[in-house]
């Protein structure tokens, strides 16, 4: 990834994490009937927080996908309600950050082209 400004880097990192977490939720939902399946979860917020606290660029933060091995061994630990909730939450967050990125790009456009 080339040099990008901080605002774009933040939008890119967050939108990427939203996409990864949404797909993990989709994957969990379609695997709700698989015997013994363990759900995926995605860690991002705390990674972003610690990266920003140590002065790193948000562009360097990658969402971390990991297995949630909770529940009895051999049992499927997908909760459909919580996966749909995650998906809806990602939908709203995506709305916020895509608007934020869009507004920022509009501002750049105006600055460059004067319209």
């Amino acid at each position, binding site marked *: 990834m080339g040099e990008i400004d901080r605002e774009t880097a933040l939008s890119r990192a967050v939108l990427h994490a939203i996409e990864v977490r949404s*797909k993990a939720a989709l994957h969990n939902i379609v695997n709700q009937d698989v*015997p013994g399946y363990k759900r995926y979860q995605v860690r991002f917020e705390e990674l972003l927080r610690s990266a920003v606290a140590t002065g790193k660029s948000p562009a360097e933060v990658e969402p971390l996908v990991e297995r949630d091995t909770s529940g009895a061994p051999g049992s499927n630990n997908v909760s459909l309600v919580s996966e749909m909730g995650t998906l809806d939450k990602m*939908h709203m967050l995506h709305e916020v950050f895509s608007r934020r990125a869009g507004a920022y790009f509009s501002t750049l456009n105006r600055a460059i082209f004067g319209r």
Partner: protein
Amino acid sequence: MTEPLSGMFHGFDIIGSGLKAEQQRAEVVAANLANIASTGNKHHEPYRRKSVVFAEVLDQASSLHGIDGADQLAGGVRVAKVVEDRSQFPKFMEPGNPQADEDGWVWTSNVDVFKELVDMSAIERSHEANLAALRVYRGMLQATVTNIGRS
């Protein structure tokens, strides 16, 4: 470039695999119900109830870092196998039946109509969940186009 989990439309493939798997499961239930009246005897077995086993699909080809994480999570779900119900066939005595064996026993299929109906409800619910997830994901892509694409 096929970076795992980065394809914009990949979410549709995941949901598509779920819808397809649930449909195959529904077809097996339909086959069970259609053959519920099948009869036989000890020489010639009647229809055996079938059920599907689902398995997770992981993209092994693109495991860049070799960890159990993002690089493998790409797949969805598939029907791993169709298994037969090995439980016993119900039998009844009806010597006049053309299917009866020499002692007069007739076997019927081991399909239980109530079990199949419950399965059908579960399939319907899973199918609805997949479709609901599809709508949300589609809304996200739509928002990308309208919010960023038009700026």
